[in-house]
């Protein structure tokens, strides 16, 4: 009985580690796009993996669950930072802190708000359907459609950088 329980626990750990290794870079890309700050993104992603590990047995679709958890954590972090800055009014918001983040990737998303960034990355980078994006953002598919439409208008207005 004890052996069976240990084996089952080891199998769960192995499955979790496989998902972790396979999805970590994508989750970081999503989190960095949302927060535009690598430290905040790492924190949000790591917290999401901690929750995933804890609830591993009850989660049916870990990748979809992770996407939602990462976005939710990132939006929480940004809300907290925004409240703090509203009180202190002394420092630039974290959105303006670029640090050593990937410039090309983030510059392309400049001008979009956080929900637009999430929608664009999930829809066009990870090819999720509008319904799936709506689940992550906890809104209706119609809202995602209009969010994407506005985001694309802004993106197309962004001056193109000469690749050469």
């Amino acid at each position: 009985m004890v052996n069976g329980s240990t084996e089952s626990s080891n199998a769960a750990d192995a499955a979790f580690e496989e998902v972790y290794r396979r999805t970590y870079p994508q989750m970081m890309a999503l989190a960095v796009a949302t927060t535009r700050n690598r430290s905040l993104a790492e924190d949000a992603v790591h917290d999401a993996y901690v929750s995933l590990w804890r609830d591993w047995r009850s989660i049916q679709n870990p990748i979809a669950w992770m996407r939602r958890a990462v976005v939710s954590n990132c939006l929480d972090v940004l809300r907290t930072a925004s409240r703090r800055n509203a009180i202190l009014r002394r420092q630039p918001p974290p959105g303006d802190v670029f640090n050593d983040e990937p410039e090309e990737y983030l510059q392309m998303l400049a001008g979009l708000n956080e929900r637009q960034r999430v929608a664009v990355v999930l829809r066009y980078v990870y090819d999720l359907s509008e319904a799936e994006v709506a689940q992550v953002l906890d809104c209706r598919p119609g809202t995602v459609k209009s969010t994407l439409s506005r985001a694309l208008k802004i993106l197309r207005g962004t001056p193109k950088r000469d690749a050469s």
Partner: protein
Amino acid sequence: MTTIIDRLRAAAETYTDSVQTPPVETIYARAERSTPRRPAPKTRRLRRGLIVGVLALAVTVPAAAAAGLRLPFDPLAGLNPDSKAGPATSPLPRIPAGSQQVKGGYITLTVVPGTHAGRSCSSLAMHDGTSSSVVATVVNCGGGEHTANVSAIMGVSLIYANDPGARRIRVVYPGGSFDASLIADYYLSKQLPPGPATITTINAAGDDIATHHLTIPER
């Protein structure tokens, strides 16, 4: 013609390829340290209210002090080593204040190898607000370094260093002055695991100003 979406996909792919996945032990260690469950909404609201209250106090107290008003209590009790109104019982070792006012230098915290392994250091550093940012460097056991700029908020900065091999944290202040003892106290009280630790304060020229060998007690 490359569309905007193709360019975005290419940029995202380049970024994803560059991400280095930390060992899964980082997640296990974080799970061990954190609270087991997300608090109930009511608890979260209360906690949020408390944080806002503390931040509001942090703004009003210095303002009141600047205006020459005397408070009936010492708001820095427990943080300021000079304060006579410190906590009634403090089991933690204290760094003596005085000689540690540093201009444009940095403080290095060395943890005995192994004791810090698997920990994600999330810490507070304090400075006088004249510097807009600080730089945190985490030196791992293999000698590699992870550096991140951190924005300062009201002289208090959050530093994240998710490095399972971290054994030394260096908080660099490009400008402004700070009291290293305040930072050291914070690390001692919140972050460092029990066991021996060394705290060295270094000035801008790189000279050691003070080194303290301490033993962090079990909490």
